[in-house]
């Protein structure tokens, strides 16, 4: 069976959920080979997790540079492997970094680039959901080895056993004029909540929440439900909530089982990031708010009354 390269998405050796989704998607095409690029010692931390999702091989490319340079180490390693292993496809996560790795790799290897897939078929053709879910598109690569970025949460991860046999690789040196050095990093304060794109429930607040302090109402409901917290752009621009939590056209695209919008009008750009959610609940004091046009259940009312009551009700039912 042909190899399918999967770039492992990890933070300092902690595997991101999307990696399991990629390994699952890869099994539809062929035999997944995980590719670990990172600081020395990374593969040892991730091997078992990769074996649990069917990685037959694990290519290990470790060096200090791999951790301290932006994007090019991943591209260099994958490009070398494409030449060596003649894979049927290369899968990476459609994250900001993954999208760049994929784009550069496709150019480097003369291959078709398929962006932000929500499903991958056995022939390495893909399904995409564009314009905020308004259109579903199928596409394929006609040239080279298809390089596919897969949207986090697009494919459901299914466990499978793999041998995860390690094979070491060199991290090629990048030409100094092309290198971007990461001189330092600061983690974003995400807290203990699930990640927006991974969560099965998202509770979002908009301008109606009124202040950074009052976002506590949104957070309390989210925590009782085990949900991630999101925000509209107006809430982010007003400084109520950090940028990384923005949902919408220019923020995150989420597709959870349940999306609860509190004090969000439902502008087309916000809807573009959440309208493919399975169930949508909206609380807004304006009967005319467009969010009600797409809500499965809407409450016309004050979020400061409805949300805390809902929080209590959920807590009660959990016992």
């Amino acid at each position, binding site marked *: 069976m042909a190899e399918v390269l999967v770039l492992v998405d990890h933070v300092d050796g902690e595997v991101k959920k999307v990696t399991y989704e990629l390994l699952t998607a890869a099994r539809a095409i062929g035999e997944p080979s995980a590719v670990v690029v990172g600081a020395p010692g990374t593969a040892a931390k991730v091997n078992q997790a990769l074996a649990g999702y069917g990685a037959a091989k694990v290519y290990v490319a470790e060096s200090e540079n791999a951790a301290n340079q932006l994007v090019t180490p991943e591209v260099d390693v994958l490009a070398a492997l494409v030449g060596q292993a003649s894979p049927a496809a290369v899968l990476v996560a459609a994250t900001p970094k993954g999208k760049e790795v994929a784009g*550069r790799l496709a150019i480097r290897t003369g291959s078709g680039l398929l962006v932000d897939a929500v499903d991958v078929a056995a022939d390495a053709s893909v399904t995409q959901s564009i314009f905020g879910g308004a259109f579903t598109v199928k596409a394929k690569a006609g040239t080279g080895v298809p390089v596919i970025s897969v949207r986090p949460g697009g494919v459901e991860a299914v466990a499978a056993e793999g041998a995860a046999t390690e094979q070491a690789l060199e991290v090629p040196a990048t030409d100094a004029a092309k290198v971007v050095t990461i001189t330092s990093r600061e983690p974003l304060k995400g807290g203990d909540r699930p990640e927006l794109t991974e969560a099965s429930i998202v509770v979002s607040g908009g301008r109606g929440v009124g202040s950074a302090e009052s976002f506590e109402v949104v957070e309390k409901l989210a925590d009782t439900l085990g949900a991630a917290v999101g925000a509209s752009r107006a809430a982010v621009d007003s400084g109520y909530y950090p940028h*990384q939590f923005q949902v919408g056209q220019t923020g995150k695209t989420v597709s959870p089982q349940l999306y609860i919008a509190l004090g969000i009008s439902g502008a087309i750009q916000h809807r573009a990031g959440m309208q493919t959610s399975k169930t949508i609940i909206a609380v807004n004091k304006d009967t005319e708010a467009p969010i009600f046009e797409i809500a499965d259940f809407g409450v016309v009312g004050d979020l400061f009354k409805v949300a805390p009551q809902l929080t209590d009700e959920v807590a009660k039912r959990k016992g």
Partner: protein
Amino acid sequence: MNIVVLVKQVPDTYSERKLADADHTLDRDSADAVLDEINERAVEEALQLQATHGGEVTVVCVGPDRATDAIRKALSMGADKAVHVSDAALHGSDAIATAKVLAKAVGTVEGVDLVLAGNEATDGRVGALPAMVAELLGLPALTHARKVEVDGSTVKVERETDEGVFFLEASLPAVISVNEKINEPRYPSFKGIMAAKKKPVSTLAIGDLGVDAGEVGLGGSWTQVTEAAPKPPRAAGQRVEDEGDGGVKVAEYLVGQKLI
């Protein structure tokens, strides 16, 4: 310091966006076309850097004839000149084909120190054009910048993504893409709008760039769209007025749906 800004005309996100039935390409007539908001921020950043470091700001755009509106907007904000690549052969080009043309178009501008772009366009959301142009030009790519600083021949960027804030450094020339947090773009002044009408725009066909028609367009692209279908819009569900029991009602609904 000479700066190129890559700008794209996109369908206005406020209007309904469609694909053409015949070949699944963007139906450009169905929606109003605007300069993508993120590109206004890229132009703003270029103008701010120019104010400190001098040099010229050139706008580069690949798009149909009507994209001149987007180019004029960038010029009326204060950019000095523009390169517009417009060619019927480009219709249906995918991201890689577009990146190749953009890289060639940047190559027509002399002495470029910095290429600025948006991090992600609101139509295709490819989010990789700047990195791909850097790959083709052999330049470093500092992407998703929320802050840019140039010091001699070094550029420093604060990159913000889910991975955190990364402090990046590279040597010039370089490609930078900016995020929504970088600045608030200026409004063109009346004077700016008038001045923009006289600023030089060089309109090029792909032949002028040495790009072969076989490398671009629907036929030359390395990927093909095989099917496209609109998703039926969501229908509105139940709506209730809060009479002091709104939270309870939501909870009951969620229980009914087996969501809690």
